[in-house]
């Protein structure tokens, strides 16, 4: 067997067996699913308590309707979500009624109350007074209810048919359709696209940063206990370099594979929409190109460190470069043909992320794919070549990190 493959096999098997890898393998997708789903779930999760809501309606036009609307909402166990009571008491002045209502809120007898009154100029004043910031869901129900009654009242006042209301309320939504090829089209929704691109790009970055750190750390271990000397007295430094890149490449593939299984499970349980995986082959391809590019970079630069601090410094610098495209992501999504996006499409550092995003947004012409692939291949080859030069000397030098001048002379050697 080729020695590079022996190194690759070792790197792969030893890292796959490590606890840190196994943990991250399962933890990362769980975290991503959690963070993408949790907010929605939390918003949807209803309070299973019935809330008491008061209404102080001095116009006498809204109470009945609003109460009906609110009390028709049921909790998951079938009990009504809201109990509505009128706070009006005959014989009391407006001011004392308000004081009484406010004290009910403060003593938690009611969650809050809807205050409706007419101003002197006959415009409507509607407030919801409560102790804490009002529940978003309740507010939207109240708004809808009050608005409906308001509109009906206006229509009646102007002697118009109340049925006009249904026309007014019928909104027309524009359905975005993505034209893929002539005769082939697909639905496209900004948010889904954004999130699915985002998830893939984040995954790419996490895998790269994680395995980059792992690579630098293992190089550091081999350097500090001189294992590297045994290795390079058994194979050439290029075989070692290629072996390490390949080993980590397989490691990345294994992670992606497991994560796709997670993804399929997530689709199966309808947490993630199937459209997220529509462009999977293209995305995976760019994912791999980016992974190889950055891993080669990490190997070269990682070989010059000889302490844990230096390793951390270097990996965090590289990680910042890696995460840079996120800044442009939102604007790029809004206008995937803008000049800045076009420039980033040709820079190997940002190309993979941008192409993953673009693949989700629009149909990329085959020529653009070919150019992008050519750029990645050439730049990865250049990085491997340069890394090889640095690696050969870097792995055998201890003590202080080389200066730029020294690095230059290494590259020339």
């Amino acid at each position, binding site marked *: *067997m080729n020695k590079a493959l022996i190194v690759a096999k*070792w790197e792969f098997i030893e890292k796959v067996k490590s606890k840190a890898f196994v943990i991250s393998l399962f933890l990362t997708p769980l975290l991503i699913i959690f963070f993408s789903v949790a907010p929605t779930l939390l918003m949807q999760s209803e309070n299973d308590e019935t809330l008491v809501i008061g209404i102080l309606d001095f116009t006498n036009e809204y109470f009945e309707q609003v109460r009906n609307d609110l009390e028709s909402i049921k909790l998951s166990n079938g009990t009504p979500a809201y109990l509505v009571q009128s706070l009006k008491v005959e014989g009391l002045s407006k001011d004392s009624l308000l004081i009484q209502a406010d004290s009910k809120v403060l003593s938690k007898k009611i969650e809050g109350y809807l205050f409706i009154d007419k101003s002197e100029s006959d415009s409507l004043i509607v407030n919801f007074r409560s102790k804490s910031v009002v529940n978003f869901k309740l507010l939207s129900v109240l708004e809808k209810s009050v608005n409906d009654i308001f509109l009906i009242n206006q229509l009646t006042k102007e002697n118009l048919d109340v049925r006009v209301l249904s026309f007014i309320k019928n909104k027309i939504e524009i359905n975005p359709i993505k034209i893929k090829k002539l005769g082939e089209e697909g639905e496209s929704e900004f948010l889904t696209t954004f999130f699915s691109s985002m998830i893939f790009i984040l995954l790419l970055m996490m895998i790269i940063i994680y395995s980059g750190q792992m690579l630098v750390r293992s190089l550091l271990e081999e350097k500090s206990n001189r*294992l590297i*000397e045994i*290795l390079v007295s*058994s194979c050439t430094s290029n075989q070692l370099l290629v072996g390490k890149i390949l080993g980590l490449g397989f490691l990345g593939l294994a992670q992606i594979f497991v994560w796709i299984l997670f993804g399929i499970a997530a689709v199966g349980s309808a947490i993630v929409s199937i459209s997220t995986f529509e462009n999977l082959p293209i995305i995976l391809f760019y994912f791999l190109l980016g992974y190889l590019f950055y891993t080669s970079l990490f190997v070269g630069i990682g070989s010059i460190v000889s302490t844990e601090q230096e390793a951390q410094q270097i990996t965090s610098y590289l990680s910042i470069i890696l995460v840079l495209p996120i800044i442009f992501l939102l604007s790029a999504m809004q206008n995937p043909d803008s000049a800045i996006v076009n420039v980033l499409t040709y820079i190997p550092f940002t190309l993979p992320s941008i192409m993953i995003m673009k693949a989700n947004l629009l149909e990329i012409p085959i020529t653009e794919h070919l150019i992008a692939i050519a750029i990645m291949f050439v730049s990865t080859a250049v990085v491997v070549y340069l890394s090889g030069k640095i690696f050969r000397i870097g792995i055998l030098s201890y003590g202080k990190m080389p200066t730029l001048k020294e690095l230059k002379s290494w590259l020339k050697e």
Partner: protein
Amino acid sequence: MLEVKNLSKYFGSIKAVNELSFRVNRGEIFGLLGPNGAGKSTTIKSILNIIKPNDGEIFFDNHPIDEKFLNNIGYLPEERGLYKKSKVIDVILYFASLKGLNSNEVISRANFWLEKLHITDLKNRKIEELSKGNQQKIQFISAVIHNPDLLILDEPFSGFDPINQQEIKNFILDFLDNGKCIILSTHQMDTAEKLCSEILLLNNGRSVLQGTLQEIKKKFGGNHIRVNFDGDENILSSFTEVISYEVYSNLIDIHLTDNISPSDFLKKLIQRVSVNHFSIIEPTLEKIFIDTIKNEKSK
């Protein structure tokens, strides 16, 4: 036979190794000695093809050392370390496969060596669970498992207790019997003295002393003998071959001129007195080392 010809390696303006030449015959342990920073490691790394010398050639059995020859070299670096989290057997198999052994071959050889060093029961343990001495044994196995023709040992005994040192020493001698070349780099002069047939003393990248142990001792030591005899020691003054002598409580150290061998002098001496003790005094390698390096420094 390993042959190093005019090896030079510079790091910037520093000449780490300067026109070094030597040969190591099969069946011979070659001692590469010298103070820290003398250029031993650079020489070893050049032989291992790890670093490229600026000048010079290295041959083994008349073939230049190249990538292919790496499978035929065993190397035990001075600073030891193994993959701590990995299993003993996995580490041995990894290094062996990097030396070009196929896996069936490796397993039987690994078992052979583990048994020979009495650590078979540690086979499936993690390296970090092993004692330092046992870790060193694993490293030693990794260096010799592919039965290399050239074995380079950098401080092979450091970290071993006397019993293990003896075990490893026997091993090295066993290995030598198969006609291998061994380069031993060490600061333990007594070990070098016992094991090496040829010595090279490096200082500042240059060879300052080189040859068989006997040659070096002879060259360095002059003609010294130690005797004990019945009778008056003043008799020694009458021998023209005696340059000087020192009398201790029951021994006399004598410095002879170079034109008489110790045995010839003994013959002359027994004709005059009754000799109870006679020995040739050799300077220890340690003394030679220290004196030579001091001498170099004062130059």
